[in-house]
């Protein structure tokens, strides 16, 4: 699915926190949204994924503005996800249940995705008993298992250790196979370099630079970006 944002802005309490003149998300890639805290990355992610709405402007999904028709092809992992008060398995498959998948299909996918992380002994535990890292894994899995056309991830590996992060990135790459896309908010420059095809850099609610990862992160043009990355 390709997504096009045209002349859109978001206001909170009368203050404009995000303004996009034009933005294209091409299908089939992993696109990273980066920027300092408060730059509007999460706002942009939430508005494009349909969790929030732009105050003004248009978003076209596959060249039409009907979000309702593409809703089922979108899934989101929020920054501090809420795990439901039930077992790990229940949480992972809940999205499939919403979409009325058959029992066999559910088991098939469950088996596949659970194998990524070593969580077999956690499967029947209540999510409230898990550590931060374990909860993050479960959250990623419950989004990944949906295999949607478009997946939005907001700092998915923030609470994960290095080993889990690398596994997570493996999963993220599979989410962008074929025409599927991933939009990923991350603070981690190295992660962006490892995983993202494109990077969009935001500051104070506006895009200051975007393009192929290698180019933007190694040879930034914008003054501010150069400042930030030079301290690397």
């Amino acid at each position: 699915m390709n997504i096009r944002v045209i002349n859109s802005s978001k206001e909170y309490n009368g203050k404009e926190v995000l303004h996009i003149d034009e933005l294209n998300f091409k299908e089939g890639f992993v696109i990273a949204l980066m920027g300092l805290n408060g730059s509007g990355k999460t706002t942009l992610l939430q508005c494009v994924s349909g969790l929030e709405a732009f105050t003004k402007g248009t978003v076209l999904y596959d060249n039409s503005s009907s979000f309702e028709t593409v809703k089922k092809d979108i899934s989101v992992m929020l920054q501090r996800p809420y795990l439901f008060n039930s077992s790990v398995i229940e949480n992972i498959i809940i999205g499939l249940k919403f979409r009325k998948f058959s029992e066999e299909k559910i088991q098939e996918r469950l088996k596949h995705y659970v194998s990524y992380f070593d969580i077999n002994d956690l499967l029947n535990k209540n999510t409230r008993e898990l550590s931060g890292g374990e909860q993050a894994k479960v959250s990623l899995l419950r989004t990944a298992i949906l295999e949607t056309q478009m997946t939005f991830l907001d700092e998915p590996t923030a609470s994960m250790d290095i080993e889990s992060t690398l596994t997570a990135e493996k999963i993220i790459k599979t989410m962008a196979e074929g025409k599927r896309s991933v939009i990923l908010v991350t603070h981690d420059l190295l992660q962006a370099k490892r995983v993202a095809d494109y990077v969009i850099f935001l500051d104070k609610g506006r895009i200051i630079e975007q393009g192929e990862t290698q180019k933007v992160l190694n040879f930034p043009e914008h003054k501010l970006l150069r400042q930030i990355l030079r301290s690397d």
Partner: protein
Amino acid sequence: MSFYGEVSGVVFLSLFISITSTIIASMAGMVLAIPIALKDFKLKKYIIRLAETFMSIPPVLMGLVVYLMLSRKGPLGELGILFTPTAMIIAQSLLVFPIVFGLTVSAIGTRGRKIKKNCVALGAGSRDTLILIIKECRVQLLSVAAAGFGRAISEVGAVMMVGGNIRGETRVMTTYIALETGQGNFNKAITIGVILLLVAFMVNFILHGLSKIDEK
């Protein structure tokens, strides 16, 4: 009828009326309150304020309104249900409804919105979202229902007016106590009073136990 025969009749009727009203009012109250708690819209503040006002409506006033509606000369007179347990259930449901509504809105509040966002993020429809919110906030919602029940079982004014305190028909624990105290039969009144307290404790105990079970 022996005293104990009368007592069990009165206690049973109290429980039947209060439990039924609480269930009706809770279902209606929660199903209406949750979507309102989750959305932000212009009239929201006024609706909540309205609910808060009705929460503390004097029961006798509600009794009067229901009486006038159900009386033969009133708009619903044809039903002929004044001075019956049905009328009492109607009056109590109306009293408990705003309590459940108002408390549910505050109980769901921010947590409900978080849950909703996560549900939408995973592709849930509104029905699934509502069910999940109720499931996740089970504990809070049960205590809201308990508060509603407390109001119902201890209420005296409305049930007195629309029920008529007819012996064997519409006499409940509270109206019984009022009557017997006025007659100077303090022993009887105190006995029922103690039972009323025990019932209140037991129901709260059960509700508490139910919420504990859910916390696996």
